[in-house]
């Protein structure tokens, strides 16, 4: 069971969590959630706005593939991924990942795995507006390293 959405609108952790909990019944013992937020400072300085671009269709497919990989690797009851696009500002929610499993080890690993692959294999492009100019963000080596450790 899983759900993948790419949307401009904000999301409610409460609503997603509630729906997830209702679907689970008494099977799941562990639910791990990740929320990514826009930070007011990035590696390059202050951030006043963040623009997220995506490739409609292909972006959703790339996330579906990441979720499928996680479901093959761990025993998961439910996976929810919501990724926002468009204009965001500091404190805004960017991404939500909820993973439910029988045991916490699977839920933690799968949630972190999904985030590491979202950073490196999902079709999004970020543009940060700082105090003055707007710049397209370059991928970081750290993100690549984090993805590659899952291949070991």
């Amino acid at each position: 069971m899983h759900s993948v959405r790419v949307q401009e609108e904000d999301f409610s952790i409460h609503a997603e969590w509630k729906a997830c909990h209702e679907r689970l019944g008494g099977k799941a013992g562990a639910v791990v959630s990740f929320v990514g937020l826009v930070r007011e400072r990035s590696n390059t300085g202050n951030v006043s706005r963040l623009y997220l671009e995506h490739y409609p269709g292909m972006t959703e497919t790339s996330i579906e593939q990441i979720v499928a990989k996680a479901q093959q690797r761990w025993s998961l009851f439910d996976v929810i991924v919501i990724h926002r696009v468009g204009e965001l500002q500091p404190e805004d929610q960017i991404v939500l990942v909820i993973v439910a499993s029988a045991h916490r080890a699977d839920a933690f690993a799968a949630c972190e795995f999904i985030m590491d692959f979202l950073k490196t294999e999902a079709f999004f492009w970020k543009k940060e507006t700082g105090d003055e100019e707007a710049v397209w963000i370059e991928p970081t080596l750290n993100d690549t390293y984090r993805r590659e450790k899952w291949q070991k």
Partner: protein
Amino acid sequence: MTTQSITIQVKFFASLRESLGMSQINLTVPVESTVEMLLKEIQDTYGRDNPLIDIRHVHVAVNQQLVEFDQMIEQDDEIAIFPPITGG
């Protein structure tokens, strides 16, 4: 030997979209063109002062699947050209 041509749709994303000033264009290319030939054609036509579309830096998807640059292009293909992704 007859020379035929095919029509494709090309999409640009992020910094590439901005620097080329367009998000989408329909192009006509010779049959048996590869992705690499298409990239060179676009760079010659639109990117003379603009190194952004350098094939060492861009990624290409054909019909929403990432491809290598020797991939052959076919009629009605949807080709997307974009810089490295920065998601999450």
